[in-house]
């Protein structure tokens, strides 16, 4: 749409009509007025005309076709609008948002909660501080509404370390004494941390909150069958879509420091890492990494082998299922499963609209296809135009190398 030339008929009319009062001014604006060193008006003879569609210069003395002069691209749609910067200097209080940061990025749930934090500030001089642990890949904290950022990094807090993480939160509590602690009600660790903080501080947390203001909150109780209207607590654990995310302002994202203390207390819970699980035993709807096959697959044994090597859950498009190459339970899309994978690799899938609906919630989509113009390539974050069998075999080899290298490093 941005490339469409828009004509301005009024300007054209004025340019044609030498008697129009605005004619002179408009011509001057189009061509530009230059004066020599003596103050004499200079006319640039080369400024005449315009480049025609075949690359030749056209001079039209009758001003009959001023189309190209007066037309302009309707580029407003694609213009990056610089959002106004929301500045908070010396805030009176903080609202801490402890984000899940699944995969190192803010989830939609996290953004909703930052939005709610701004609603709770409600025009007062306060700042929303985001607290996050471990790896961080997010680059759009500013547009998500983060005024201040507290990031705990390092081997010890990465992964599973609830006891250490809670010590860090207690430090933040001691140093900044925030007005509210907001946590996402999620299985990614938000609920767990909130409960731990609540137990440590003795502040009664309100969980499963879906509507909140500074005085009163509404929370779900009894497996979501009742609404409890109650006074707001300092620790709120919030459900998804509790507020609108921030989308009209930019924020400062200043880094807040927390004085570090060493903890000598031995940890009673020791993490031994993630277990290897059979990727195909994980339900397709909640699989993290899906390798999905469509009509473009010629060699199915290579596909299955690659999925096994990469540790990916197998998916399929409707065509692959109808042709009997994959079971019905593996179908992704409107009539199959709506998947939520973080990484979705579509091999030989052109992207029918029903299939695209099914992968609507996927973060990263990788398309492997022979057709550059297909919808899946347009949707993909990385599109590879290649023969599926060759590429899968190359991926297989890379994975073998990777495993060999990893094995050597261990020795």
């Amino acid at each position, binding site marked *: 749409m941005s490339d469409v030339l828009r004509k301005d008929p009024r300007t054209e009319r004025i340019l044609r009509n030498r008697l129009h009062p605005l004619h002179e001014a408009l011509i001057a604006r189009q061509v530009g007025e230059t004066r020599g060193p003596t103050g004499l008006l200079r006319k640039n003879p080369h400024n005449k005309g315009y480049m025609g569609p075949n690359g030749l210069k056209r001079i039209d003395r009758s001003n009959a076709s001023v189309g190209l002069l007066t037309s302009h691209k309707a580029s407003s*749609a694609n213009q990056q609008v610089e959002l106004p910067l929301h500045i908070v200097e010396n805030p009176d209080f903080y609202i801490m948002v402890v984000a899940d940061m699944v995969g190192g990025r803010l989830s939609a749930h996290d953004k909703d909660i930052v939005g709610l934090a701004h609603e709770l500030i409600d025009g007062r001089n306060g700042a929303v501080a985001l607290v996050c642990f471990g790896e961080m890949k997010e680059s759009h904290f500013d547009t998500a509404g983060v005024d201040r950022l507290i990031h705990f990094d390092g081997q010890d807090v990465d992964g599973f370390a609830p006891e250490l993480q809670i010590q860090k939160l207690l430090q933040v509590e001691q140093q900044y004494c925030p007005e509210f602690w907001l946590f996402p009600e999620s299985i990614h660790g938000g609920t767990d941390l909130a409960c731990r903080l*609540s137990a440590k501080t003795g502040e009664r947390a309100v969980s499963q909150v879906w509507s909140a203001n500074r005085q009163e909150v509404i929370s779900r109780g009894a497996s979501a069958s*009742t*609404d409890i*209207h*109650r006074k707001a607590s300092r620790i709120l654990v919030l459900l998804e879509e509790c507020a609108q995310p921030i989308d009209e302002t930019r924020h400062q994202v200043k880094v807040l420091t927390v004085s570090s203390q060493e903890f000598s207390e031995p940890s009673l819970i020791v993490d031994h890492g993630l*277990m290897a699980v059979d990727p195909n035993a994980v339900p397709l709807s909640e699989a993290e990494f899906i390798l999905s096959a469509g009509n473009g697959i010629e060699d199915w044994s290579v596909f299955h082998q690659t999925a096994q090597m990469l540790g990916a859950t197998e998916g399929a498009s409707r065509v692959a299922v109808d042709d009997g190459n994959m079971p019905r339970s593996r179908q992704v899309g409107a009539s199959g499963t709506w998947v939520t994978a973080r990484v979705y*690799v579509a091999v030989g899938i052109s992207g029918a609209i029903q299939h695209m609906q099914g992968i609507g919630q996927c973060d990263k989509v990788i398309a492997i296809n022979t057709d550059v113009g297909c919808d899946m390539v347009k949707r993909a974050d990385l599109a590879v135009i290649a023969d599926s069998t060759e590429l899968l075999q190359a991926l297989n080899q890379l994975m073998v190398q990777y495993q060999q290298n990893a094995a050597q490093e261990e020795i």
Partner: protein
Amino acid sequence: MTNAQRSLECGKVLSLVAIGRHPQSGRPRRGDQDAKAVEMGLNLSAEEFSIIHAGNPDNPVLRHYAGMGVKKMVVLKQDQDDDALPVFLDYIAKHDPQIVFTGQRSESGESSGMLPYLLAEKLAWPMVSGVAEIVAIHDDEAQLLLALPRGQRRAVSVKMPFVASVSSAAKEARQSAFAVGLRAGIEEHDVANCLDQATTQWQVVPAKPRAKRMKVVKTKNAAERMKAATAKAQSSGGKVLLKESVDEKAQAVFDLLIEEKVIR
């Protein structure tokens, strides 16, 4: 590892249960996670395994728990609005168990899921949330599998004694035998009443369905609203590899997979 190799011997084990609520019919039932916690306790070779409930001893749902084949069931008599935390604390302090199981979140009442955390805090024990399986118990250390999102499992070891909340991903609870449940003896204990003061100020109403979020297009002109409503997905600015060799393309895909940490 087979069952013969791994040791699941430990001292006393308690499981705290509550009255559940069927998600569709709303009838009282044995709680899903609570029943799974009882199942986990029954599979340990514990010195003594008992289940504790704070509430009305005449509730028929308790027979469903007892019907799972539990030898000892204790009910601490309480009213509905009473706080269960102090009476559980008293009981645990008296009986000195090694492991206390709970569900992650009760299916009735406030269902805040705070009880195991508060117990662990007051007892100064470690608390593990979302246990899927107990792999082995050696001396004073238990090896557990925690249920993570997306079907993943994390192996942790924890010092005994500890409080564990059992995840819905744990092994399915066994069926309850009706006659066994009827025959089971239920110990009733009288405990001091302690009303949960905060709950008296709450206003509890049936849940209101939440409005679905609308997709709002914030533009000033009609053309863009029309475009947002009708346009197909445009290129989202992804990278397209067209002319590179197959190896380079595969490398690019592989690098992205590594960067996203989906390859282990």
